[in-house]
């Protein structure tokens, strides 16, 4: 990561002129390298410590054994089945929560009477830990797929509804005046003012909701499920396969990370006016 390591762009190029640029590049590269080096370094230390017997491998098995176990689970198909089961529930639950969350949030944001009637109810039930609802949901929806999907949906619904309502209600009144002065129809006020004005807030709600959905699906799958990453982790505890537990955690972390990237990219597409801000 030094200047020496970089080849000159062209033989005989003026070195003085390129110096400021060169100074910038390595530091940015350094940051990226550090971002990769830190976890890799930690894994290495962990591996060495496990092999040297410095840490208890019953709780912290060596990374190499975790990755080995991952290979085993992948070959047996168990990993894919469980990952797919969780993703599927997450996906369906997301839409089941998103659609009513958006609809209710918009109605609450646009119409004061709706807000007055529903805000206390929604805000009041929001702080209830969603995981504490699981027994009730299991009672109502049974042990099969519906209860898992409903748990995800609840997790998505609340942040989306509340953030959408706040976003729509907080669009500055001057924009509605402009729309009215320039003859916008009701539909256009909705489409051109209310929704784009609230979009950043809506996207925040969706990000929060997906994060919550991921937590809730893992919890829901630990109780009475026969598939899913939550089930895999719980089952690993019962058969005392610590490596499998770590594999489950790792996959969930990777899913969470990839979903955040995906939502970030979708958000950037939906709010192009915020780019580079």
């Amino acid at each position, binding site marked *: 990561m030094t200047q020496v390591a970089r080849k000159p762009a062209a033989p005989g190029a003026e070195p003085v002129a390129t110096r400021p640029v060169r100074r910038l590049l390595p530091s940015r590269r350094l940051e990226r390298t550090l971002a990769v080096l830190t976890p890799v370094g930690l894994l290495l230390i962990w591996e060495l410590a496990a092999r040297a017997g410095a840490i208890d491998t019953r709780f912290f098995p060596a990374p190499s054994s975790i990755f080995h176990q991952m290979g085993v689970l992948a070959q047996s198909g168990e990993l894919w089945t469980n990952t797919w089961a969780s993703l599927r529930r997450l996906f369906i639950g997301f839409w089941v929560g998103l659609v009513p969350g958006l609809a209710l949030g918009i109605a609450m944001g646009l119409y004061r009477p709706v807000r007055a009637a529903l805000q206390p109810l929604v805000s009041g039930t929001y702080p209830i830990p969603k995981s504490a609802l699981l027994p009730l949901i299991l009672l109502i929806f049974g042990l099969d797929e519906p209860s898992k999907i409903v748990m995800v949906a609840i997790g998505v619904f609340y942040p989306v509804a509340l953030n959408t309502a706040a976003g729509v209600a907080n669009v500055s*009144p*001057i924009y509605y005046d*402009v729309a009215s002065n320039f*003859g916008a129809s009701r539909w256009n006020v909705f489409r*051109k003012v209310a929704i784009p004005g609230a979009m950043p807030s809506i996207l925040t709600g969706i990000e929060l909701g997906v994060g919550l959905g991921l937590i809730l699906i893992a919890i829901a799958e630990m109780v009475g499920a026969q598939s899913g990453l939550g089930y895999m982790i719980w089952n690993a505890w019962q058969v005392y396969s610590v490596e499998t537990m770590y594999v489950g955690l790792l996959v969930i972390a990777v899913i969470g990370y990839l979903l955040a990237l995906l939502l970030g990219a979708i958000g950037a597409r939906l709010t192009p006016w915020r780019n580079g801000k």
Partner: protein
Amino acid sequence: MTVDEGRDVASTTGPAAAVSDKDPADVHISIRGLTKQFDVRGSTVTALDSLDLDIPRGQFLVIVGPSGCGKTTLLRMLAALESPTSGAVEVRHGGEGRPGNSMVFQGDSIFPWMSVWDNAAFGLTMRGVPRAEIRESVGHYLEKTGLSAFADAYPHQLSGGMRQRVSIARAFANDPDVLLMDEPFSALDEQNKTLLQAELLRIWDETRKTVVFITHSVDEAVTLADRIMVMSAQPGQAKAFVDVPFERPRDVLELRHLEEYGDIVYDIWQHLRDEVSRSQRQAAAAPATGRRRRR
């Protein structure tokens, strides 16, 4: 577009100065006994008190007055964004399918989520004007306001002066019968202000639409106006009318050289002086009632 509360229209006749000496058939906007009251925490604030005013077609009318005297309220009633408590606003629509009025709002009012082009095209798009026509009109006014190169930019990438230009382009492109402008340049520095005043006059000279322009700058008023209405402090009333006889097109800078320019500025300041100090005393006496929904 007619706002008619049906009250007091016949019984009130405005003071002689309020009515222009032009052909009365050419009156574009006729305001009679216009009053607006707001309820602010149980007490009633009279923002505008029985105002009479005739604005001839094609006149550039500038309204000056101390802040809080009801200028914005008057403009919002002309735009039918607010309804009068009593009195009437009658607008004689002369346009064939063109909108009654377009407003350049006080403060930032262009949509942050639309490009400069889409902002300027907003009114035309909302009215369903054919695309080719929109392209021509928006292109024209973006060029006139020096924004052609920024058509695809978003407002946060622009300076305050450029954002005000977008707001002006949006209003002009909409081709309204009346232009309502609420302190469009008040947030700008002196150089930008002068630049935009010159730009505005240049654009206005193309069409000579009826304009109602609000400002708290006396210089701006004299620079732009055919006629100036000086308003009294709360409750807002017409205190004086001053004609500005300078010929058009005007040179914003050369104008200030003229002896008459100084005379008119001085004249307006005389009218304003007592009003400004009166409004300051009011503000000092009742600091809590000044809270408002908007800037």
